[in-house]
């Protein structure tokens, strides 16, 4: 087992020991926090960001076939901004940080740096004194790390599965095959022992250290692995995890990221389209889930944004594989707002910017996003 040197201590400490040490410390603090009680939030935000999807595979005459739920079921009840420009770096970490902060970010694409401005989560924590339990990120994307918003619960759900599968493949475990039961056992083992490496960060005091919440997560994993139709998708796991967080904790702010369509980087167009279809379906399921609970339905705004498009066919960057060009095809995304913050469903044809969403939704939540550079969207309730 690999070893760490804790804060320069001369005696090496194993990850398991470190985990236990941290758990004990956090449990103690949580116990103190729980006695104060946490009020139920009056307004909740669920923000779904989706990886790169071009207009030609989504909101266009030829593309709507790939997003039937977004187009037919959600768009008519939403505020829809079909022209939402990404004027920043068209990489995952920078785009999602820009959406969350309301400022174009130019930090390391690989998530080794935190955003250089506060995120919506931080505004909520500081201005509304929300506890860490009220702020959650559940993401599929490999490039997102806990740095996306320090001080917030960040679950890299797909990473957990990837880690378990990789450990089996690389022979780092006694388990040998990618069969359901072996993967579940490995995921549970990773969850228990390999806290450092799997990258699902719990950088602050967090209920995730609560054994009950962890048990909930393991149970959710078991449901996923043994569920019908042999689920193969990381985004389905992300959805399931996010749904569990809402069901059990109903936090004030949850960001979910879907990224199955990013298989495009490996060049399978059919699997890329499959990822788009899956994201479309999972967004719809999330909306239905929120609507199925009267309290959630009354208090929650669901915002769905694709991070960017992808490169045009025939570009020197290999078209749909990548998202690097300074083209409309790559930079022009869309946004959809559903639920409590919507004054009146409408298609807003003027161009907006992704950084406009944080101050707008922030205002609806009673937050002043004073370091954001975006403009407020008047169609959103304040």
């Amino acid at each position, binding site marked *: 087992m690999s070893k760490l040197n804790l804060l320069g201590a001369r005696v090496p400490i194993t990850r398991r020991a470190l985990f236990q040490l941290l758990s004990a410390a956090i449990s103690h603090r949580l116990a103190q926090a729980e006695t104060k009680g946490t009020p139920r939030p009056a307004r909740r935000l669920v923000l779904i960001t989706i990886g790169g999807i071009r207009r030609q595979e989504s909101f266009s005459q030829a593309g709507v076939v790939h997003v039937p739920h977004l187009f037919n079921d959600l768009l008519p009840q939403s505020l829809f901004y079909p022209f939402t420009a990404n004027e920043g770096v068209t990489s995952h970490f920078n785009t999602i940080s820009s959406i969350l902060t309301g400022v174009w970010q130019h930090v390391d694409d690989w998530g080794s740096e935190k955003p250089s401005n506060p995120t919506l989560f931080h505004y909520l924590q500081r201005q509304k004194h929300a506890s860490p339990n009220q702020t959650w990120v559940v993401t599929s994307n490999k490039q997102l790390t806990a740095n996306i918003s320090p001080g917030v619960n960040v679950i890299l759900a797909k990473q957990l599965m990837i880690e378990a599968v*990789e450990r089996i*493949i690389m022979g780092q475990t006694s388990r040998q095959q990618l069969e359901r039961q072996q993967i579940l056992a490995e995921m549970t083992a990773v969850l228990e022992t390999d806290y450092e490496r799997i990258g699902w960060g719990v950088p602050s005091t967090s209920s995730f250290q609560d054994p009950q919440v962890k048990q909930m997560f393991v149970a959710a994993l078991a449901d996923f692995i043994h569920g019908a139709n042999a689920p193969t998708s990381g985004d389905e796991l992300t959805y399931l995890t996010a749904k569990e967080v809402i069901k059990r904790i109903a936090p004030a702010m949850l960001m979910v990221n879907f990224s199955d369509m990013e298989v495009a*980087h490996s060049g*399978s167009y*059919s*699997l890329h389209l499959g990822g788009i279809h899956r994201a479309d379906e999972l967004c719809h399921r999330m909306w239905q889930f929120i609507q199925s609970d009267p309290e959630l339905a009354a208090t929650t705004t669901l915002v769905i944004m694709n991070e960017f498009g992808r490169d045009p066919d*025939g570009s020197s960057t290999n078209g749909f594989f990548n998202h690097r060009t300074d083209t409309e095809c790559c930079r022009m995304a869309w946004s959809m707002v559903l639920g409590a913050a919507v004054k009146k469903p409408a298609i807003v044809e003027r161009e907006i910017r992704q950084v406009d969403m944080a101050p707008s939704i922030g205002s609806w939540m009673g937050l002043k996003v004073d370091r954001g550079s975006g403009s407020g969207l008047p169609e959103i309730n304040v």
Partner: protein
Amino acid sequence: MSEAVPEFAKDLIGRLPRTFGPALKDQFQQWDLLFPAEQRSLRAQLHWLDELPRDRFQTLFAPIIAIEGKMELPDWQPGTVGLSVHDSGLLARSPLYPKWRVEVEKVFTEVDDAVEKSGVLPRPPRFLLCVLPAGVPLTSQPLWPELAKHGAWTKLDVPFGQMLPPLAEALAERKPIAGLEPIESTWVLECETKLSPLAETSTATVLSWAVLAGARREFSSKLNSIRRDLHSVDETNEELRRIDMRKLLSEPVASEPRVREFVRTLLLSGNGSLIFDNSFIQWGSNEALRRVQPQVMLSCFGIRQKIKPFSGSVLFEDQKRSNPTPDQDDPAGSLVDALMLSEYVYLGSERVTPYREHTLTLMAAADLNRVLMLGPKSMPAVPVSFNAAQLTAFTLDWLRSAR
């Protein structure tokens, strides 16, 4: 035999914008591993720049140098060769990167146009063939609807799959054209091994996804061991750049240094070339068109296997190794992939000057008894239908024609 890198070019580096230095030095250092077309093109570009009056030279690069002055650039030392992943990331996330890219493209367009007008580079007629594999459901969707607007469908007396072996053989064994080296004659990228014997009997270069299985496994295994930090990525890339490819490849690819290095670069350059057979064919073909510029390029797509449960999230892995679920072909998905990727091969050829307006392109499917033909306006009239001998003769005549 290739000439060495010209001396004046080494002095020129100091006058160019800072961002050009590391990549250019990398090309000079690997000069012997560049293909003849790359050497000719680079030499012509550098020669044109060297001859440019000082004031025009400064005017040409002034916008890039001005942008560089405002960018946070990596701390390159005078001897820095090539760009690390970290360097590339730093450039790409700069707020000025899009402007820098636009200016760089403008400069290259001006240089390339000038070199083209000078007429120093050979521009023979060329042939590109993309073939969809047998067994895909061809009637499930229209075939290349966008390309079909610019070409014409021609009937064949038998399905194209039957015509391919004799056509490929005739192309591979044709008399080489003056001014091109044998390595620039014919390149074949295939998923299977049907055309691989051509490499033994002709000057054709054949890269087969199946034959390269050992090399792919080795690269995948190393890339799977990368820790999630940039240093580890650079370290692993460096290790794979040093690995002895001769042990991983079979003859004749193993003994031709330029092809050997082409394969290494291809497998390291992403774009799915290690993961999916059809991505390997597309990206390999486009890289060959850009770098080697062969007179004849044959790109034969294949059938991808279905992604097994749980393998979908770990695409660097050879899913046969650890997953007990039996392999299953995905003909429907393979058709969707191959249609798009074969179109990308064609679009890629259109971006490379020697192919634009000089190339006869055939888009074919092994099970289909018609082909889509695309070519320049000056292409001879295409008959209503072909048999195998007629198609071969038409193609060979095209390649011999004076353009």
